[in-house]
């Protein structure tokens, strides 16, 4: 999402973006660190608080807008992308952020999400994926792993989960990224990129719910695991990871992305990440490396391509119509049909 607000003369601080409402998440919830990351990033963007609108659905994560000293709507379950679409179309001058959860965005709100993505409405979408329904106290979500035992699945869930990155790519998203609640710097870098992107920017955030799904990402996000379990994507660079960058990603002869030992294949054979490729297949291939956060998982920007924004095109048609027909004249409009007078 682009910086299109007026730059502010005074320097802004985190405080300028923090509301006076007490934060109501469980102690230890991953939501806190996302909030911090966003509040710390905001002043850097050089846009005054009044030019942001945070729109959320319903869920623990969706309380987020209350804590931002910006404009905000805590809407209804799953519908945030539609409200955000209305705001963005009405006011291309604003910066619209959508805050949503794995239930909010992918269960009840799945349709609005995929349509916002294909339309490329200018909004930054942060999906707090804790693989659980937090607010309703612990049912499995569309990202929960198969067999998960929860209140609503005492014998294990049967629903094959979505891979949010794959889904977004299948829905023609122009910007797709993933980050996690354990690394504020990484979050900020990704959020900033998302904000700068013209169009809908989709960011999946792995977020720990320490009350109902504690440790869901432990296998990849513990300090100790991160080097060998997180595959950081950098545009234009060969994809490498591991404590000593000893591992990498390469395409095998079938064209599938696979994990390799760099020593075995040679650095040349590594896949060079390309965010800007028109064809989303590469990004899709990377998204399939990890269906669940238990194996090496790519984080960072999967895809970032340019496409006209929806509201930009709306605006273009309005301007063109005015140029063609002149500004609307009600009398003329009504009188455009045959008119007769009775006196």
């Amino acid at each position: 999402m682009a910086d299109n607000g007026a730059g502010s003369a005074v320097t802004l601080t985190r405080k300028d973006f923090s509301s006076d409402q007490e934060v109501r998440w469980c102690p230890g919830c991953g939501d806190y660190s996302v909030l911090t990351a966003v509040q710390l990033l905001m002043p850097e963007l050089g846009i005054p608080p009044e030019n942001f609108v945070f729109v959320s659905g319903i869920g623990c994560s969706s309380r987020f807008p209350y804590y931002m000293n910006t404009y905000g709507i805590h809407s209804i379950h799953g519908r945030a992308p539609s409200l955000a679409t209305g705001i963005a179309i009405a006011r291309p001058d604003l910066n619209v952020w959508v805050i949503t959860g794995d239930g909010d965005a992918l269960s009840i709100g799945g349709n609005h999400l995929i349509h916002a993505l294909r339309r490329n409405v200018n909004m930054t979408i942060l999906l707090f994926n804790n693989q659980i329904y937090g607010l309703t106290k612990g049912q499995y979500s569309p990202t929960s792993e198969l067999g998960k035992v929860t209140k609503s699945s005492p014998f294990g869930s049967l629903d094959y989960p979505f891979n949010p990155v794959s889904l977004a790519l299948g829905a023609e998203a122009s910007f797709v990224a993933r980050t996690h609640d354990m690394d504020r710097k990484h979050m900020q870098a990704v959020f900033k990129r998302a904000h700068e992107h013209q169009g809908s920017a989709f960011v999946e955030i792995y977020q720990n719910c320490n009350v109902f799904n504690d440790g869901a990402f432990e296998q990849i996000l513990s300090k100790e695991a991160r080097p060998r379990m997180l595959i950081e994507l950098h545009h234009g660079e060969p994809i490498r990871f591991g404590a000593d960058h000893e591992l990498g990603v390469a395409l095998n002869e079938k064209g599938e992305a696979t994990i390799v030992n760099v020593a075995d294949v040679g650095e040349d054979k590594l896949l060079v990440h390309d965010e800007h490729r028109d064809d989303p297949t590469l990004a899709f291939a990377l998204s399939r490396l990890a269906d669940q956060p238990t194996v090496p998982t790519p984080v960072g920007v999967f895809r970032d391509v340019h496409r006209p924004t929806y509201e930009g095109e709306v605006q273009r048609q309005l301007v063109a119509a005015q140029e063609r027909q002149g500004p609307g004249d009600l009398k003329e409009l009504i009188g455009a049909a045959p008119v007769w007078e009775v006196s």
Partner: protein
Amino acid sequence: MTAETTTTSSRRPEALDRVVIRFAGDSGDGMQLVGDRFTDVSATFGNDLATLPNYPAEIRAPAGTIAGVSSFQVHIADFDILTPGDVPNLLVAMNPAALKANLHDLSPGSSIIVNTDAFEARNLEKAGYAANPIEDGTLAAFRVYTVPMTSMTLEAAKESGAKPRDAERSKNFFALGLIAWMYTRPVAPIVEWIQERFAKNDMVRNANLAAFKAGYHFGETAELFDHPYEVQAAQLPPGKYRNISGNVALAYGLIAAAQQAKLPVLYASYPITPASDILHELSKHKNFGVRTIQAEDEIAAAGIAIGGSFAGHLGVTATSGPGVDLKSEAIGLALSLELPLVLVDVQRGGPSTGLPTKTEQADLLLAMYGRHGEAPLPIVAASTPSTCFDAAFEAVRIAVKYRTPVILLTDGYLANGAEPWRFPEIDALADISTPFATELNHEGEFWPYLRDPETLARPWAIPGTPKLMHRVGGLEKQDGTGNVNYDPDNHELMVKLRAAKVARVAADIPPVEVDDEVGATVLVLGWGSTWGPIKAAVRRVRGGGRKVAHAHLTHLNPFPSNLGEVLARYDKVLVPEMNLGQLSRLVRAEYLVDAQTLSKVQGLPFRAAEIEAKIVEMIDG
């Protein structure tokens, strides 16, 4: 045919004060098209008129079957009329199915023009006729004119170069030509229209023109018809007129209201019959700054409109019954956010998918109560096609002034029906704008729910306004601050405030007017599109020497403040409704008045005669 030859006829026309004509044919026969032409030319000619299109829900139901019949009824008169007419004086039947489907609506003595070419074995069978009704006495009670329209069309179109299969499709213009002659319609505008509309396809244009002229000349030359008829221009109240359908009037009303509210329209909608034409119409007017968004579904459409309103636009969404169901939750949110919003419900036959192309008034209680929790909102209804303009304007006025979603009810009959519209002087339209909040309003803070003491509306502070940053949401909030709040007393306060805000609209709307006669004991109370048939029925009852009063509601919630007093004046109250008695239930609950329902749930408007009979029964009984 020159312009001169077209407006005179060699035989003297007989003057009529009114006539009801029904064009009926197969869905593919273009009946709506010729109906529209006849209507437009009659409107410009100066008749008063009303129309009733009627077509199947299928895009194209099986050709030749009863299910596939499409008809268009138009009532023209030299005085102000109120309905499309109870009984057609003339039925144009393009095939056996069209005859069969419409015959039972005629009275003995009505005229029928049949396209004899279509009355062959296969078509008769498809229509379920064992024998040819033209020949077997079925039509004995009627004046029947048999015209081989198809073959005459083919003959006429020969020169156009169109292949017979294509040329045959011009037969609706033959029929139009014939009827234009019969009722002495000006021909030039029709010819022009054909020329323009089919400008891109010479062959089709020429075939249609040739068919039209052939029909006209057939009337003139054939011995079939004694003489043409004439319906003079009506003496309507002075003013500028144009013909308009309900959906177009509604679209114009939104544009006008938005202009007077100094807000851009942000219209989000998901297509649905019979509301889609509002989207189609509005999407043409981008030069007014109207943004139209075809959403992925009705819920998204409501959400987009809410977002638009939050951002300082006039959020509007329109749909029909199934879509209203779906939008319920979002409308509840708008109500809780206390933002302006207009939801248009173009009612159609229900429940469920029901009768998508037919009219009904059965969503009134849904509009009142179709959201969980105590969730009241103002409701406005249009009563004729052209008053869709006024109703839209009024809905916007209330929405903006009180910061509330408003439901605007119309129906399939209003949406597609047309009538002459004495349109308002644009410059005289009221200013209905409201200022956005720009300043802190409470001890150095901005309180988003600090209400206007008169209207109880909250400040509308739009994003981009420095210092007024605030968050709103669907959770209960503290009055004043707008902060999330679960306090029991605050909740009750808010529930009552939201109700009080809607109730206050009553002081801001005109009292209901009663078309009264001294001594009337029966009041007919109506709302929405029953206006025409009720008014016509009342005229007839009075013509019969009885006294009756009529009151018609534009505001369904809140009711006009004098309604209780008006109802109390009469011994009996009759409520004709195209439902099982919905307004009736509201009135009974509110005023404990024994309002009686006259119900018709057939997907069709009332006939004046039906209401007349009931009124007479109540007066005499």
